[in-house]
């Protein structure tokens, strides 16, 4: 009898404990499960786009906690990104700056409203000031006006700029800029046209 009462008392305490359990925030894995069950593929945008790379995980984590990446991780991710860069085999970096301007103005590509035949643009003006005649530019990225005038066009500037376009994380681990070469967003020819927009002395950017 006594035992029964004690047991009853214990289970009541247990129920109370469970129902009053201290709230624990969902883990990253739990959130990921909910996210993955909440999306569906549409057109070219398949579900595998939710599978994050190591860099995406590290940069998301740094962002949600408001802490900078540890120096070691930063260096490692930047080195890995730099290793993905494929420089032009012919050594030619500059294409047609007029084409480059068009690519910088165009924002389509890789959305579910696009097709796999859509020629993607760079949408550079969404975030950057570039040619002085275009005043509808965003400010998420730095101004690129006068790019060559400010930096010159040495081999070091050429390879840096190409690398930045190919995989922006090579020079800033958690850069917000898309990996235009590494993620196959733009072709080599398009990248060269963008290079010319920034680095051709006749480009409006350098006037």
């Amino acid at each position, binding site marked *: 009898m006594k035992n029964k009462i004690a047991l009853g008392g214990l289970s009541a305490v247990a129920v109370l404990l469970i129902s009053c359990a201290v*709230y624990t925030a*969902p883990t990253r894995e739990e959130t990921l499960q909910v*996210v993955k069950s909440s999306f*569906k593929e549409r057109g070219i945008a398949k579900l595998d786009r939710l599978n994050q790379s190591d860099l995406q995980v590290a940069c998301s984590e740094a962002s949600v906690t408001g802490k900078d990446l540890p120096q070691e991780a930063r260096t490692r991710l930047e080195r890995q990104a730099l290793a993905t860069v494929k420089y032009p085999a012919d050594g030619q970096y500059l294409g047609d700056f007029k084409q480059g301007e068009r690519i910088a103005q165009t924002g389509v590509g*890789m959305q579910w409203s696009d097709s796999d035949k859509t020629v993607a643009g760079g949408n550079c003006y969404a975030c950057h000031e570039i040619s002085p005649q275009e005043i*509808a530019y965003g400010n998420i990225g730095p101004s690129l006006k006068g790019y060559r005038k400010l930096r010159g066009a040495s081999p070091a500037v050429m390879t840096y700029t190409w690398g930045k376009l190919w995989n922006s994380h090579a020079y800033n681990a958690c850069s917000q800029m898309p990996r235009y070469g590494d993620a196959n967003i733009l072709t080599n020819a398009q990248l060269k046209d963008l290079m010319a927009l920034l680095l051709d002395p006749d480009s409006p950017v350098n006037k």
Partner: protein
Amino acid sequence: MKAITRAALGVAAFALSCTAAFGQKDTADAIARYRQLLQDGNPAELVAARGEALWKEKRGPKNASLEQCDLGLGAGVVKGAYAQMPRYFADADQVMDFEGRVVHCMVTLQGFDYATVTKSPYSGTGQRQTEIEALAAYGVELSRGVPVNIPQSHPKEQASYDRGKQLFYMRAGPYDFSCATCHGVTGQRIRLQDLPNIAANKEDAQRAFTTWPAYRVSQGTLRSMQWRLNDCFRQQRWPEPVFASPATVDLITFLGVNANGAKMDSPSIKR
């Protein structure tokens, strides 16, 4: 004489250097004036009226109206309910946003099929509003002027906020974008479009939450909060969020809690 010329030149140079800044301010002012002019005669009023008719009409296999729908403040109470959602609903044992809850009522009270109702939740450009959009316009209209008060007392409401925050910062897809790419820093623009900092700027979060749903002039149709998230994810290069799915509710909870205290001012009218 020379000094005067030099002074005049200085003034001219100063004026020139400031033109760009003034230009931006003028643009912002002009857009604000444009919005104010649009506010008179917002077509969203007609959408809300249709939503009210839909709410009160006996429809569906069960030939019932939505007037017994519980939006969190008791069966049939619409006034002020939108400003307090997403919230936890015991009967569904989950956190629901306004749009998801209305669909829940269409299914449970009126007997509609969930998949059919949610197949096309958004209207095409210039097309007739969907029923969900009309009902959202009606619901939010009855919360105009009501302070946002998204509850955080139930553990599932807290979990919704915390997941929403994690998702907000989650970078994924071929462009590596998260919500925070555009909405994590104050004062940022895409082209000339101002971007609210939803995570860390209370005023920005409040303006964003209180002005959706909105009539989009450029699209000739009323857009809901679920649509707003959907079109962000399209541009984020992610797959498509399922209508009223847990992740979308979590994001709306994150935004809503960050906006608590501001007065609802919707349906509004936007560019």
